[in-house]
């Protein structure tokens, strides 16, 4: 039995009675089969009892919280059950050793750029980040790597506008608060993706706090930020593009607030449906010679990182073949 992710969009309460977890909202009270839950994503205002949290901790289920804008707020990350002192030491060693860290940081950026190029090709936009990637090679500091990464991303987003329908041009990619529709959509998807990666890391022995491209101090789970560089183009960007080009997400799915534009509840629902479908889609893995879901690709990326760290195989970032 594959465990499932649960998303709570409505307001309500999460409680526990004996060995059952319940979610209660305006529609009523529903039991949730805890054995089948992989993780939980909460967008609504949800009260959680401490008994419910104890229960979730016991079952090793992570809970991710999102704010009003659908941005990631934080996670309930149960005390880690999977430990490997040896791996933690290797992770730290690759952070402390300047060459080793630079190498990994560059690999994340290269993988990310390759996936962006691939997207542009799918959208029939001719572009290459060759020059910038050459510059990346000669970078000697993490700040330089970050700088190249930012310029690649900027160019990438500016190219989207060529194919985006009117009303959904990015113009300038801003962070929070999102100031237009496409920004709001991308931020929403990226937030969810980040939380998904946090969940995947929870199920490995990697310490999510030790990262290479991003500074470990940047966010609590900075390794998820590193990995999200690879997956943002393949997952979030592709969904965002498809949704607006096919008219599944329309102007009416957004509302304006004092601070900017944000998705409506209906809009969030539609986007999350597309997101879950996308993660559940299988692709044939050329190395493993079997079908794996796109969500599983994240876990596999973590495994590749483990292999790099223990010195059995150099990390090669995932470049989409699908």
């Amino acid at each position, binding site marked *: 039995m594959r465990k499932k992710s649960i998303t709570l969009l409505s307001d309500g309460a999460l409680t526990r009675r004996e060995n059952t977890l319940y979610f209660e909202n305006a529609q009523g009270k529903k039991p949730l089969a805890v054995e089948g839950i992989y993780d939980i994503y909460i967008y609504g205002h949800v009260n959680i009892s401490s008994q419910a949290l104890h229960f979730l901790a016991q079952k090793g289920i992570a809970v991710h919280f999102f704010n009003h804008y659908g941005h990631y707020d934080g996670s309930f990350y149960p005390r880690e059950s*999977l*430990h*490997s*002192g*040896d*791996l933690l030491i290797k992770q730290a060693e690759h952070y402390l050793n300047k060459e080793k860290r630079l190498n990994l940081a560059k690999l994340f950026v290269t993988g990310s750029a390759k996936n962006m190029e691939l997207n542009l090709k799918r959208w029939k936009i001719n572009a290459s980040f060759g020059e910038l990637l050459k510059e990346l090679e000669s970078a000697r500091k993490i700040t330089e790597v970050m700088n190249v990464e930012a310029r690649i991303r900027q160019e990438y987003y500016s190219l989207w506008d060529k194919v985006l329908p009117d009303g959904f041009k990015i113009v300038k990619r801003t962070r929070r608060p999102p100031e237009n529709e496409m920004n709001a959509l991308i931020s929403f998807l990226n937030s969810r993706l980040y939380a998904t990666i946090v969940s995947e890391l929870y*199920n490995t*022995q990697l310490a999510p706090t030790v990262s290479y491209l991003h500074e470990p101090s940047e966010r609590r789970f900075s390794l998820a930020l590193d990995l999200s560089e690879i997956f943002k183009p393949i997952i979030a960007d592709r969904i965002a593009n498809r949704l607006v080009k096919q008219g599944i997400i329309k102007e009416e799915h957004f509302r304006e607030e004092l601070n900017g534009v944000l998705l409506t509840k209906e809009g969030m629902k539609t986007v999350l449906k597309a997101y879950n479908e996308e993660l559940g889609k299988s692709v044939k*893995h050329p*190395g*493993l010679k079997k079908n794996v879901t796109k969500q599983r690709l994240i*876990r*596999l990326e973590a*495994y*590749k990182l*483990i*292999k790099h760290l*223990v*010195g*059995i195989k150099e990390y090669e970032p995932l470049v989409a073949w699908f």
Partner: protein
Amino acid sequence: MNDKYLFNELLITGTEINYLFICPTKLWYFSKGITMEQESEWVDLGKFLHEKSYFGEEKEVQIGSIKIDFIKKGDIIEVHEIKKGRSMEKAHEMQALYYLYYLKKLGIKAKAVINYPKLRETKELTLDGREEEVEDAIREIERIISLPAPPKPLKSKKCKRCAYYELCWV
């Protein structure tokens, strides 16, 4: 009594002996705490057999670093291991012999019985004359787990239902 291995071997678990004869790569990862989630049906079947097959015995007896499925006390102590099938027979056998070796070090004479409930078969073993085999295995485990990187995986039939499949072959 030969005390040469008394302290080292006490840290080695039956699982490690078992894995040595299944796959050194698996042994290395396991010994570093890099374990895989237990989702496969195969593992569940093992658990099921374990829980359903043998009531009334003293189950899951932990002695130092070894954990014996169950023990029967008669004229001579019997340590029992429950296994699904014969495909990993050598690994099962060595695991059982290791328990006997371990117990002998503690001054306990015992014999081992490997149970294959699905096949309705059992296999009995004693340590007599096989101490060296166990000591060789212990030495080999120590060598493998002290390697800085895991031994290169070798693809075999075993890989298909190994929990480390994705880690090894991605």
